Every structure is written in structure tokens, then in C-alpha cells.
């Protein structure tokens, strides 16, 4: 009896395992193919000499032309086939092209009869290997015979069909370290890394502090609080493209509201190009201080857009703190600042740490915002923008992938930190 139950429960467990796999397998497959395999493919591409143009597969271009007239039976004309390898880099191998020869046409002569042969109204030309950029020509001499039917038998009606094999740069075993060499030797790289760190640290810390501040303000209950809580989440939920362009127009040097207002109020004399100027200089006791304007603006945008997230989480956590400890503290005469410092903060420190790590990683990953605001110009190029710049602006996919690999490795280090610390507090 007992054995029976044991057997049954292990049978049940087996079934459960099977079912669980069935339920979760589709998800795993999809995520694997779109997230993890590309991740590995990115490593692969980063070791390849591949540019954007190489993605267009090489092909054989054939043009068919008829010289002469075929208006009457017995007339002679020529068909010219011009072929060309479209790629400037890669050879085509085993090139064969075939064309259908209609019944109403007799082939008199083939100029390159070593390459071509005719098999039951089909022309087959075996061109063999075709080097990059190379081209050639095949001429057929034809005549019209009596079985010509006007509509069907025009030789141009049938397009020549080509077949060939070629090396696909993505799958070949052609590796190079050039991409990494290029990335690391460029002076710009260390500058980019520095800017990324500035952006990430100040963006994260700023958004977190503003979020904490907003949460403190919205914790006090007052009329209209739910509405204001909703309003404060607007920057986070609206499309990045809309808010980024709104900021660009708001700070536009020619027709932007901020510039016109500052000029109107006589704070500045000339309009400032907030998103296009790398530095503004200040003189402080005779020292020239350079303030990175565009970078700061991008950081301010980041803070503005993401403080709602920290705000929401910190507020949720604060509302879960029991009221009575504050009441007790009030009776003991603790001042508001003391209450914040000794009661709220210890409760919040866990969520703040977790938010900091998460936001740190996401800010580090951020691409859209900077790309839309400045395009990575004026000293705002971060690593992620550099990926785009290398891969799509300079068209060097390999170098872009190499930068992406560097990003991934840095992220991996962050993530290890994240896992280590996030065990204390789960969001």
C-alpha cells in the first residue's frame, strides 16, 4: 500500500515536470532565440571584419538584350547576356545560369560554347568561379523558325535564372582582432567611457534623490494627492520620442521658450544652445572653469524622466511603514527631521540600494534619450551611442559589436553586484 502511494507520487512528480517544461518551453525558446543567441552572435560579429554593406548578399546580375529583328521567319538576331558579380568583395562559386529558349527559335551559334550548352530548349551556362567585381558576356546567334507564336515566343519573356554559392561573411570562419584594436587605440574611447560614467552616476543619483524628495512631499496626505501622484508619473509613461523632442524644442536656441524667457528677463544676452554646446566657461577668482553644458542637460533630462520610478517605489515602501511608530516618536518629542533620519531612512535604505543598482544598470544601458536629444554630439557620446555610431554611422558593424561586448562585460560585473545585494530586498 505504502509503496503504491510512493509510486503514485513519483509518477505525479514526473508528470508535473513534464507539464512544467511544456508550459515554459515556448517562452524559453523565444527568449533564447531573440536574447541569448544574439548575445553570443554579438561576440562572434565583434571578431569579424564586417561592414554594413556586407549584409547585402552578393548576387549575380544578368541583363538580357536582343539585337536585331525577329519579325519574319528566317530572320537572324543575337541575344546578349551580360553578367556581373554585384559584390566588390566576395567571389561567387559554381555559378550556373539557365534560360528558356522558346520553340520558335533556333540557336545557330553560341560564342562561348565552352561554357554553355543547350539541352531540350534550355540554355545552360556553367560560368564556374566569378571573382569579385568581374563581369562577362555571352552571345547567342538565333533565328526565327516556322513554329513561332507571337505572344509566347519572345525570348525576353523568360528571365534567366542564376544559381551560385558564395561565402556568407556572417557564417565564415574569417576572424580578426582589428575591431578591438581600433576601439581601444582611439583616443575617443576613454573619453566616451568617462562621459558614460558621469552620465550614469549623476543621472542615477539625481533621479533617486529627486524621487526620494517627491515621495517625502507626496507622503503627507492632502486634497488632490492621487491626481498629483498620477501627474508626476507622466514623464516616465510617455513615449521617449515625444518628451525628448519637447525638450529639444523647449531649449531651442532660436525659437525655444527657455532662451526667449531668459533673454526677456535679462538673465542672458545671447541665446544658449543648451543641447549643442560642449562647455560654458565661468571665471571664478581668475580661474576659468569649464562646465559641460550639453552633458548636464542630458543628465537633467534623465533625472526628469526617471525620478517618477524611484518616487513610486519609495512612496509604496513608505506607506507600508506602520503609522504607530511615528505616533510614538511624536509623543517622545522627536522632531520631523529626526523622524525622517532615524525612522524612515532605515526602512527605506534597502529599497534605495536596490533602486540605485537597478537604475544604475539601466542608465548605463540608456541609448534612446541621448540619441534623440543630441545625437551623441557636444560631448555626450556614451558607450551605447558609440555602438550606434560605429556600427551604423561609420558602417563598421564589427567595431560596433566590439563596443557592445565591452558594454556587456561591464554590465556582467554590475549584475554580479546586483545579485549579491538584491537578495536582501526584492522589488
Amino acid at each position, binding site marked *: 500500500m505504502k509503496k503504491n502511494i510512493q509510486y503514485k507520487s513519483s509518477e505525479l*512528480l514526473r508528470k*508535473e*515536470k513534464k*507539464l*512544467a*517544461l511544456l*508550459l*515554459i518551453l515556448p*517562452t524559453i525558446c*523565444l*527568449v533564447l532565440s*531573440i*536574447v541569448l543567441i*544574439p*548575445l553570443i*552572435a*554579438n561576440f562572434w*560579429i565583434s571578431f569579424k571584419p564586417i561592414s554594413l554593406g556586407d*549584409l*547585402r*548578399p552578393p548576387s549575380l546580375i544578368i541583363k538580357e538584350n536582343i539585337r536585331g529583328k525577329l519579325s519574319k521567319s528566317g530572320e537572324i538576331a543575337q541575344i546578349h547576356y551580360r553578367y556581373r558579380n554585384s559584390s566588390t568583395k566576395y567571389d561567387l562559386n559554381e555559378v550556373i545560369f539557365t534560360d528558356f529558349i522558346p520553340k520558335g527559335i533556333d540557336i545557330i551559334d553560341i560564342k562561348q560554347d565552352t561554357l554553355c550548352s543547350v539541352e531540350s530548349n534550355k540554355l545552360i551556362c556553367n560560368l564556374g568561379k566569378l571573382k569579385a567585381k568581374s563581369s562577362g558576356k555571352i552571345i547567342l546567334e538565333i533565328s526565327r523558325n516556322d513554329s513561332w507564336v507571337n505572344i509566347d515566343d519572345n525570348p525576353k519573356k523568360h528571365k534567366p535564372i542564376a544559381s551560385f554559392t558564395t561565402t556568407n561573411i*556572417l557564417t565564415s570562419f574569417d576572424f580578426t582582432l582589428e575591431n578591438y584594436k581600433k576601439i581601444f587605440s582611439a583616443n575617443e574611447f576613454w573619453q566616451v567611457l568617462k562621459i558614460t560614467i558621469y552620465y550614469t552616476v549623476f543621472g542615477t543619483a539625481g533621479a533617486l534623490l529627486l524621487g526620494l524628495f517627491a515621495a517625502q*512631499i507626496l507622503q503627507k496626505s492632502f486634497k488632490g494627492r492621487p491626481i498629483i501622484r*498620477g*501627474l*508626476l*508619473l*507622466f514623464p516616465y*509613461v*510617455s*513615449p521617449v*520620442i*515625444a*518628451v525628448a*523632442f*519637447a525638450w529639444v*524644442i*523647449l531649449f531651442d536656441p*532660436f*525659437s525655444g*521658450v527657455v532662451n526667449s*524667457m531668459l533673454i*526677456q*528677463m*535679462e538673465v542672458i544676452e545671447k541665446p544658449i544652445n543648451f543641447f549643442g554646446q560642449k562647455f560654458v566657461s565661468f571665471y571664478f577668482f581668475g580661474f576659468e572653469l569649464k562646465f559641460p553644458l550639453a552633458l548636464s542637460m542630458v543628465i537633467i533630462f534623465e533625472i526628469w524622466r526617471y525620478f517618477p520610478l524611484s518616487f*513610486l*517605489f519609495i512612496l*509604496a515602501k513608505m506607506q507600508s511603514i506602520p503609522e504607530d511608530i511615528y505616533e510614538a516618536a511624536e509623543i517622545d518629542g522627536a*522632531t*520631523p*527631521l529626526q523622524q525622517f533620519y532615524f525612522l524612515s531612512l532605515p526602512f527605506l535604505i534597502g529599497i534605495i540600494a536596490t533602486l540605485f543598482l537597478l537604475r544604475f544598470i539601466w542608465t548605463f*544601458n540608456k*541609448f534612446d534619450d541621448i540619441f*534623440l536629444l543630441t545625437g551623441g554630439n557636444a560631448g555626450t557620446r556614451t558607450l551605447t551611442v558609440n*555602438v550606434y555610431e560605429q*556600427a*551604423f554611422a561609420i558602417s563598421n558593424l564589427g567595431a560596433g559589436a566590439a563596443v557592445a561586448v565591452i*558594454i556587456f562585460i561591464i*554590465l556582467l560585473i554590475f549584475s554580479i553586484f546586483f*545579485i549579491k545585494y538584491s537578495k536582501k530586498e526584492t522589488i
Partner: protein
Amino acid sequence: MFWKYGLFCSILTGSIWGLFWQIIFTMIGLLTIGEKLYVNVVPFLIVGSLISVIYVFLQNKISIKFHLLSIIFMVLLIYSFTFGDPFLQKKTNSISTFLLVVFNSFFTWISIYLSLKQINIGKLSRYNLEKFYLRLLWGLGLIILILITLLPFYIMIMTSLKNQQSLILNPLDLSLNFTSDLNVLFSSYIELFTNFNFHIFLFNSFLVSIVTVFVTLFFSIPGAYALSRLRFPAKEWFSGSVILIYLIPSIVLVIPLYAVFSQLGLRNSLFGLLIVYPATTIPVALYMLRGYFNSLSKEIDDAAIMDGLSRFQIIIKIAMPLSKPAIVSVALYVFMIAWNEFLFAFMFLDDTDLFTLSRGIISLNSSEIPQQHLMAGAVIATLPVMVIFLYLEKFLISGLSSGGVKG
């Protein structure tokens, strides 16, 4: 110390609020009445502090009449201290500047009243002092937060309703001429829908987002159920790796996906997007739903099994109806991610017929197309998300705070 005395507190409060509202109302005036105004610092500082001192002395006699009288008194003070020209316009004053002054006085008075409640002129205790300073900070902070949050949206909407001429003439004048024809007011929107194919973009965006929602739910509900209820090897490992996938940036994926999709012919197609979007949203959805399933009691499942329901039936008949709020919030959240997505749409789509809104708006960002078209596009993209958000805010907030924190 002088800053511990109520008198100093009241002067400080009065001057801060006086200055603050003066700046705000100058800005509001600049943006709405379209006249040239200047910030006039000193008189407003003085009037603010005078009024707050009066308040502290007379606060026991407070009544509606007292409020009204003080506001009128304040308007008079402002006009007399600025010699009849509160915003330094150097010309005769209009009714609109008078209204600005009245509103200014009203808000300044209310702010002073709210921040100086129960403050007497003498020395304050540490508790009351902190309470006072924090209250001041609270008020200032709340108003500034709201203003900086909403300003870009205000600019976005107003710019989209203006025409080219008036924008170049005076970029500050965002007042609207409601007397004009609606066709003129909404000319940018009409232009976008007639000449810039925005109806196609809107349709594509809805199509992609809604399909993404359904695909995501189709995959993630069974997945999350399995992660929450069933026992299988490496379960913990799966749960852990879900959040790690979250941390992988799309810029790292974009190059290989671009390369492979180009060669497979999937790149310039909505189908390509519909493969990528669910793959990025499923981990988020799995994480959120698993959390919710965990909070449901397992006994119901056991009872259902006893009654002879299969696991699939349990998911459809029990788990899904019970977790409706979570599913709605996940669906909304996924919709928002797909709707707002920019990078893949930008990299993948080349044909105008396939553009989503994000991609379409990018194509408006050129010097040949006027700004108000770009802003009208931005409004069109923002509006559906806002409507959904405001309508179902509670769902979304609970969803957001239960783990949907995709940056």
C-alpha cells in the same frame, strides 16, 4: 539665534513666497498674454514680508473677511510700491496685468497663510522650527515639482496648436486664439493625417502593440503558472535568470538582430518587430505574473485537482479569472512598452507604409518640416498612452510597483 524667532520666519516666508509667485506669474504672463513683462524683485519681496508680518500679528482674528481684505490690501500695496507698473512694462496697464497681480496676491497670501499657521513672533522650539521650515520646503517643493513635470507637456501641446508665423514672431506667446476656426487651430494635426500618413502610423502602432500584448500573455501566463506552482528541476535558476534578461540592453542585441534579420528578409517588416517585442516583454510579464500567482492560495489548485480538473483547465478556469487585475496591469504595461519602443522600430523599418508612430515622428525631425508638426506628432503618440494611464492608473501603479520597472 535670529533664525529661531517667529518674526524672522515670517519675514523669510513672506519674501520667499512673494519672489516665487512673482517669478511664476511673470512667466505665466509671458506665456499666456503675449506681452513683454519683466521680473520686478524688490517691491514684491517687501510686499511679501510686510503682509506676512501683518498676518503673524493678527492671526488670531482670522476670518473670510480678513482674507479678502488682506488680498485687496496686497494688490494695493503692489501697485503703490511699483508706482502702478508691477511688471515694468513702461506703458499703461491692461486688464490682464491687473488680473496677474490679483492672482499673484491671492496665491502669495494663501501660501503665507498655509506656511505660517500657528507660528508666533517669539522664539520657537526646535520641533516647531523644523516643522515650519519643512512646511515651507514642502510647499515650494510640491509646486516646483508639478511645474517642472508639466512644463514640457504644456510646451508640446501649445506649440502643436500654433502656426509657423506666430511662432517665429514671438516664441514666448503661447496664447491661443480660440476665436479662430478649429481647422486653423488643428491645422498641424490635419496636415499630419492627410499628407504625412499618420493614419497608417497610428494603425501600425496599435497593431504592433496589441499583437505584442496578446503574444506576451499567451506565452507568459502558462510560463508564470509553471514557475509559481509546479515543481521541476532548475526552477530557481529559471526564476533568477528572468530578472537577468531584464538587464540586457537592447543596444547590445540590435547589431546581431539587424544582421540576421537583414539576411532573412525579416528586417523591414512588422513581423520582425513582432518577434522582437514579445521577446523583450515576456521576461517582465513572467516576473510580474509569477509574483501575483505566488500570492494566490495553492489550496484552490489542490481542490480543483481533486475535482478532476487538468492543469490547463486550472489555468483557464481558475488562475486566469482570479488574477484578472494582474493580467490587466501586465497587458497595459506591455502595451506601453511596445507603443513607446523606439530603437528597434528605428533600426528595422525603412518603408513609410510600415512605420510605427515612433519611427514616423523621427522622420518629421528635419529642418524642412515645421516644429509644430513635430510637436503635433508627439501629442498624437503621447495621447493614447496618457488616456490609458489616467483611466487605469490604479492598475498600472500596482503593476509598476510589482516589478515592472523596465527602464
